[in-house]
């Protein structure tokens, strides 16, 4: 039987939502789902090599940012990049950078982004993949 498929339109470049995406990816990995992630606009900023590990922006409950980030450390929560990497190691996860988003942040080649990125693609590829998915999420 073919694996179930999850597509994720990842728009957010903030660590709170990226961490949540990492948790969901963990669940998908545990169930051997195939995953296609499309990195859109602000998420492409977070995937840039120079930003991934230093970006600590949060998009929700911003007045509690310090408490939130401290709690992630207290709970031994892996950095979102590590959560994504673990999922890639455990199941079939492909990460596609939206070509437009890449250009917005001056990244035109996969090498401009962290090594989790597999390629740069257009929206048509996302639409085709999402049509075939069992679960489609936007974060």
């Amino acid at each position, binding site marked *: 039987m073919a694996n179930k498929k999850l597509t994720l339109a990842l728009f957010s470049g903030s660590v709170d939502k990226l961490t949540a995406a990492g*948790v969901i990816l*963990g*669940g998908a*990995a*545990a*169930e*051997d789902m195939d995953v296609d992630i499309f990195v859109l606009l602000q998420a492409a900023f977070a995937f840039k090599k120079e930003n991934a590990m230093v970006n600590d922006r949060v998009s929700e409950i911003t007045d509690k940012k310090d408490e939130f980030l401290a709690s992630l450390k207290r*709970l*031994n*929560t892996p950095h979102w990049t590590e959560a994504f990497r*673990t999922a890639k190691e*455990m199941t079939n996860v492909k990460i596609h950078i939206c070509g437009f988003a890449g250009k917005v942040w001056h990244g035109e080649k996969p090498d401009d982004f962290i090594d989790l990125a597999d390629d740069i693609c257009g929206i048509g590829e996302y639409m085709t993949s999402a049509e075939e998915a069992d679960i489609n999420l936007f974060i």
Partner: protein
Amino acid sequence: MNTEELTALTVDKSVDARGTSCPGPLLAAKKAIGQIEKGQVMEVLSADEGTRRDIPKWCTKKGYEYLGTLEEAGFYKIFLKK
């Protein structure tokens, strides 16, 4: 299985995931299940409340047998058979 039966089980593989939060214990179980043979028993130690619900559902989806959970001081022992 009841508490006595779970306590008496011979465990072939023990996974201590008490230092991680969701989805850490589930992923630890996923990694470890590949290290045991069909018919062998694994226990997952988790202090994460969600794991006690996740593991039985995961077992059902993946074709493993969920045997039961023991509640210890501050953590759970979750048993399954591959």
